[in-house]
């Protein structure tokens, strides 16, 4: 993969931090709005719609509006200050002022009352918007934008219609006709539409968490998600009002409490890298302990609080990213639907590694940055480790190919000898014999022909040995069990043979097993001074095990004995393992395990 195609860390939309003055001005405005909201001495109209949409005692309402306004505005400001890249802070501020505006319905000023009524159903929609936009402040899909657009239309657009129909008392400046029944119908439509929006938002949140796969950054997202229950409560509350049923007090208070605490939860969720500072410090300590390369991923995952974190290392010679085992890793291209985000870690202009992580981490660039910086040397070690593994894999692959090519070539040679020279020599033997029989009267010539025949027979024997050494044709033609029987019968000691393969194996494996047994038996004859041996060949769980046990003197040396070394090479070339137990005086047990695919 060319370097240019590698997705790079998103960081271009780093909006400049808001100016200090703006922050202070907004903070003061928020506080003033809160104070005003609390001070409105609920001049509630005893008549009209207020009685129907009864939401609580005036004092409680006043305090609640004040608290919501102040908490959303201030939390939004803090979020904006520390997370200028995220639009979530500004969104919270808007919500705070939106709630304040909705509270203006409680005033007696015509203008303020009218403004308040235009937006009085806005807060539930704003809450839904917040939940859906956490933590980036952006809505991730067109579907969501459409859902909210409908909700906003219902909240504000229909509100204007309703206000024209009157029924809100004397302060309504927009009243055109007095049709309170029609207004009530519109109100119900609004409440139902907004309830549906809230429930829709909840469904989206649940689906999103489902499709996120492994639990991402568990604790915080769970915390935020739990507040989404507020959306359900809003929906219940609004529907009960729309149906004219009495609002259930417990639900009402729980809704207020949930929505009141929510801004703090949002703020914690956004700013949790403040809390993460200590985890970076822990990471530095942990990495100083020089952890094994596979543990580096776990350490980084802990520091970033992303258990699903994956590490990929850049191998310049291979031109690709690999995991710690050297297996190629494809980096996902960034996009709105990307399940994983990618952060590249480069040093001195060269790729070192890539972090594949929860996209939510994109909102904590400092955390990512400091973790990446702290992991520098450890990542370099991991990269070397991965490179080694990749090279080993490559080597193993090429060794297997060489073995296979060698075997193919040997098989071809055996076949050529069998079909060519050997057949001709047999035919020649026969020809000589027939010739010899035809020469009735010449004993000298007959003797010379007989001599020639013996020479040919000897050549044939020698050729046969060569051909069999090249490739045991009986293995390919008739299978391992048939071939091993001859080996066992000709073994230097009595042999008990057991073959349980349940079918043929790949030829490479059959031939390797054949030679393994042949050489083991030859070794037993030469060194073991054994009185008997057992050979067991079996297939278990996708592996072929070959065990050759004798009761000889033991003490076989895997390193010095070139025979055993050769066997080990043969087994390892097929990605298998050979182990030898040979205690002095305790016999020799040789066990090979070879992967056989199925």
């Amino acid at each position: 993969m060319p370097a240019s195609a590698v997705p790079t860390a998103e960081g271009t939309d780093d909006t400049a931090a808001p100016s200090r003055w703006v922050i202070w001005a907004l903070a003061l405005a928020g506080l003033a709005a809160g104070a005003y909201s609390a001070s409105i001495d609920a001049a509630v109209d005893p008549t009209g719609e207020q009685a129907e949409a009864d939401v609580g005692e005036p004092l409680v309402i006043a305090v609640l509006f004040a608290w919501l306004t102040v908490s959303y505005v201030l939390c939004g400001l803090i979020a904006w200050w520390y997370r200028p890249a995220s639009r979530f802070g500004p969104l919270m501020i808007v919500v705070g002022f939106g709630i304040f505006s909705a509270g203006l319905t409680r005033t007696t000023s015509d203008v303020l009352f009218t403004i308040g009524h235009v937006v009085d159903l806005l807060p539930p929609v704003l809450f839904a918007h917040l939940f859906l936009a956490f933590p980036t402040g952006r809505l991730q899909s067109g579907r969501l934008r459409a859902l909210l657009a409908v909700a906003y239309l219902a909240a504000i657009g229909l509100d204007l219609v309703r206000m024209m129909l009157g029924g809100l008392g004397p302060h309504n400046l927009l009243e055109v006709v007095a049709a309170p029944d029609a207004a009530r119908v519109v109100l119900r439509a609004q409440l139902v539409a907004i309830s549906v929006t809230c429930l829709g938002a909840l469904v989206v949140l649940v689906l999103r968490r489902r499709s996120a796969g492994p639990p991402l950054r568990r604790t915080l997202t769970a915390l935020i998600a739990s507040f989404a229950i507020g959306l359900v409560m809003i929906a219940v509350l609004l529907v009960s009002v729309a149906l004219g049923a009495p609002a259930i007090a417990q639900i009402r208070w729980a809704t207020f409490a949930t929505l009141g605490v929510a801004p703090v939860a949002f703020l914690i969720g956004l700013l949790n890298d403040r809390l993460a500072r200590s985890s970076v410090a822990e990471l530095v300590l942990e990495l100083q302990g020089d952890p094994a390369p596979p543990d580096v991923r776990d350490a980084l995952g802990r520091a970033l609080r992303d258990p699903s974190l994956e590490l990929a290392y850049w191998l310049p010679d291979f031109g690709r990213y690999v995991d710690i085992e050297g297996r190629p890793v494809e980096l996902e291209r960034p996009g709105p639907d990307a399940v994983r985000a990618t952060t590249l870690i480069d040093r001195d202009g060269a790729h070192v590694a890539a972090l594949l992580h929860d996209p939510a981490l994109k909102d904590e660039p400092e955390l990512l940055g400091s973790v990446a910086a702290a992991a520098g040397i450890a990542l370099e070690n991991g990269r070397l480790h991965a490179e080694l593994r990749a090279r080993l894999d490559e080597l193993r692959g090429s060794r297997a190919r060489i073995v296979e090519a060698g075997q193919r070539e040997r098989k071809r040679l055996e076949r050529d000898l069998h079909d060519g020279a050997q057949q001709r020599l047999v035919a020649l033997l026969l020809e000589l014999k027939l010739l010899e029989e035809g020469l009735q009267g010449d004993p000298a010539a007959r003797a010379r022909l007989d001599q020639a025949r013996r020479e040919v027979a000897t050549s044939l024997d020698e050729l046969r040995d060569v051909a069999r050494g090249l490739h045991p044709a009986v293995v390919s033609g008739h299978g391992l069990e048939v071939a091993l029987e001859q080996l066992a019968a000709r073994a230097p000691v009595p042999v008990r043979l057991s073959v349980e393969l349940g079918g043929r194996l790949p030829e490479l494996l059959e031939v390797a097993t054949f030679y393994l047994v042949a050489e083991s038996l030859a070794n037993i004859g030469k060194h073991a001074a054994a009185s008997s041996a057992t050979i067991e060949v079996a297939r278990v769980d996708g592996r072929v095990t070959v065990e050759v046990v004798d009761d000889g003197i033991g003490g076989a040396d895997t390193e010095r004995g070139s025979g055993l070394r050769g066997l080990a090479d043969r087994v390892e070339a097929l990605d298998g393992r050979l182990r030898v137990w040979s205690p002095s005086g305790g016999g020799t047990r040789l066990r090979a395990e070879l992967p056989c695919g199925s």
Partner: protein
Amino acid sequence: MRVVIAEDSVLLREGLERLLGEHGLDVVGSCQTAQDLLRLVRNGPPDVAIVDIRLPPTHSDEGMRAALEIRARYPDVGVLVLSQYVELGLAMQLLAESTEGAGYLLKDRISDVHDFVAAVRRVATGGSAIDPIIVSTLLSKRRADDPLSRLTPRERDVLELMAQGRSNQGVADRLVITVRAVEKYVSSIFDKLGLPTGGGESRRVLAVLLYLRS
């Protein structure tokens, strides 16, 4: 005596045809593939089929499979398998059920013309022909507490020839002794190995082979 031959080497096939013809056997068909062999046997079952163990197209086990099929479907047709290599396991596959009308020989044996023709005749008439290498492999097989060690050298010779499928007369000719003497040796051998006597000569071969193989 009707013979069919399946051998893909032209030189060898023609040599065999000539050799058998000269010795009074009637080669009624010859072919290069297992398929053709099975067709020849189906069209007119011969007394014996001589089959190269490796036949086209893959030269792996086609010949052997054809031999086993003929053994199973035409019990009256003798089957003599020829091979460049002698494999105990293959011989035992061929002789697993019985040794009657079955043979397994190394190709070189062809040049020992008289012996070879005798082997072909034996197999054609329900006897057997087992390569000396198979027999010597079995005899050399090490056993714990080996009863074979109780045999005299002469008894061993007789056992070896008997196991190759030779008749008492054949053994007697080979060792230049009388048939009566061979019979005496045979009953002594069966005694020492604890094998039941009786049955025809070819049944006795299987008994000996199975004994040696165990």
